């Protein structure tokens, strides 16, 4: 059971300086309108959880933010740039500052742990020398407690270890923002709790802001400064965990039962 002390307290005071701002974002797949004029703001240092039912468009939302999916309309302002209007080279510069943890970890099967972590460094920072790359790889692995796995193949790792390695790869470029897509899905409750605590610690260490997509209320309690309820393609409600948990609105209550 999650104790009161594990519930997120804002250790880092977040400012009112928006790092991500979405205005009237809409996205449809055929006749299915997933996002309908969605508005959202993420301030610097803030960790916001997006809660919603399966298929409600949570993953689509963060994929729009990173430019993997193009919205039908609306503005997605990330670190001062409107993502849908950017050319590939400009988009790559923004992506170097935004980490993305995939639901399936998305570790490259054909590479070792070291090569997986080196990959974004070699791509985004082509001029970096090998000793610098090695230092950063070891630092990122040490921060997730898996320095000993550096020369292992990803197929040799457990589910929890894969998640930590994926987290290390996300953090290796020292991003300003991290987007987490269901970070504890598929993990047992104990490992899920460890990953959630690690996310919280790393947010402090790396001074990141983050959007976390999650169904896991234990994870939500640990990592969220505030929660956005994504219902019917819109931001239905926003508030702290305790506030939403006490809500009498039936649509909100469904998530906390």
């Amino acid at each position, binding site marked *: 059971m999650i104790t009161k002390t594990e519930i997120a307290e804002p250790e880092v005071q977040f400012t009112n300086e928006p790092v991500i701002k979405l205005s009237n974002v809409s996205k449809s797949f055929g006749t299915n309108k997933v996002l309908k004029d969605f508005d959202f703001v993420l301030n610097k240092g803030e960790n916001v959880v997006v809660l919603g039912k399966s298929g409600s468009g949570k993953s689509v939302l963060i*994929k729009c933010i*990173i430019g*993997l999916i193009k919205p039908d309309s609306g503005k997605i302002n990330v670190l001062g740039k409107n993502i849908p209007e950017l050319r*590939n080279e400009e988009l*790559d510069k923004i*992506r*170097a500052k935004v980490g*993305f943890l*995939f*639901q*399936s*970890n*998305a*570790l*490259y*099967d*054909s590479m070792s742990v070291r090569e997986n972590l080196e*990959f*974004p460094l070699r*791509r*985004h920072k082509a001029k970096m020398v090998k000793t610098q790359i090695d230092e950063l790889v070891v630092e990122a692995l040490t921060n997730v407690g898996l320095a000993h796995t550096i020369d292992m193949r990803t197929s040799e790792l457990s589910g929890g270890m894969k998640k930590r390695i994926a987290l290390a790869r996300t953090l290796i470029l020292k991003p300003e923002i991290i987007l987490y897509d269901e970070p504890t899905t598929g993990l047992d409750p104990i490992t899920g709790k460890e990953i959630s605590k690690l996310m919280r610690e790393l947010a402090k260490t790396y001074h990141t802001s983050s959007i976390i997509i999650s169904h896991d209320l234990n994870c939500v309690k640990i990592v969220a400064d505030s929660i956005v309820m994504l219902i019917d393609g819109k931001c239905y409600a926003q508030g702290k965990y305790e506030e939403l948990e006490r809500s009498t609105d039936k649509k909100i209550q469904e998530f906390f039962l």
Partner: protein
Amino acid sequence: MTPNIFTSFLNETGDIARFAGRFFKEAFKPRYEFAEFLRQCFFIGYKSLPLVAITAFIMGLVITIQSRPTLVEFGAEAWLPKMVSVSLVREIAPVITALICAGKIGSGIGAELGSMKVTEQIDAMEVSGTNPFKFLVATRIMAATLTIPILVVLADAVSLYGGYLGANIRGVVSWDLYWNQVFDTLAFSDVIPSIIKTFFFGFAIGTIGCYKGYNSNKGTEGVGLSANSAVVISSLLVFILDLLAVQIIDLLSLT
């Protein structure tokens, strides 16, 4: 309304053509993924060597053994090296090698890219500042286009050696006589067109494998379907391209 088979065939043909067009648009612009291209040449070319060599050897041996009785019947046994060398170099070695590669390389690329797609590795690559089309697709298509002709040259040589052994199972043909007859018979007009067509075979195999894998969906079921349809379509394309090549060579009077 459910699209009929003809419409979906035309749609898919159009998609494959666009995919191939994207290859030409992106492959020759920087940034060049040379290291990945060499890695793919190793996997597609070098790793296929044993399979291609064994198959070519057996084909050369079998074709010679099978042709012998008919030639003996017409008293033309001495023509065995001539006949075998022309049929092997012009047709059998290129097509059999391409079919072997369609099975091995086409399915491998389809399954690998398909599994990368469903496990979001392709998205992760894009987020890491890499153009996945250039890194994964362009390198594989180029490697297949350039290594399959080399494999065919090797298959030509090995199958002709198999033919030599086959000719000596029931008869006696000296090493010198066999190779003299082979090289007297073969002209550039036999060798060059048959090698040129293998570049197209390689391009087709690489493109179809990548197209099927890159556009894979439906989860793990989709990975199997991608690998399977990559083999089926690229094998069929090899035959269609071979038919076209024969017609063009005939029209140009190169035979």
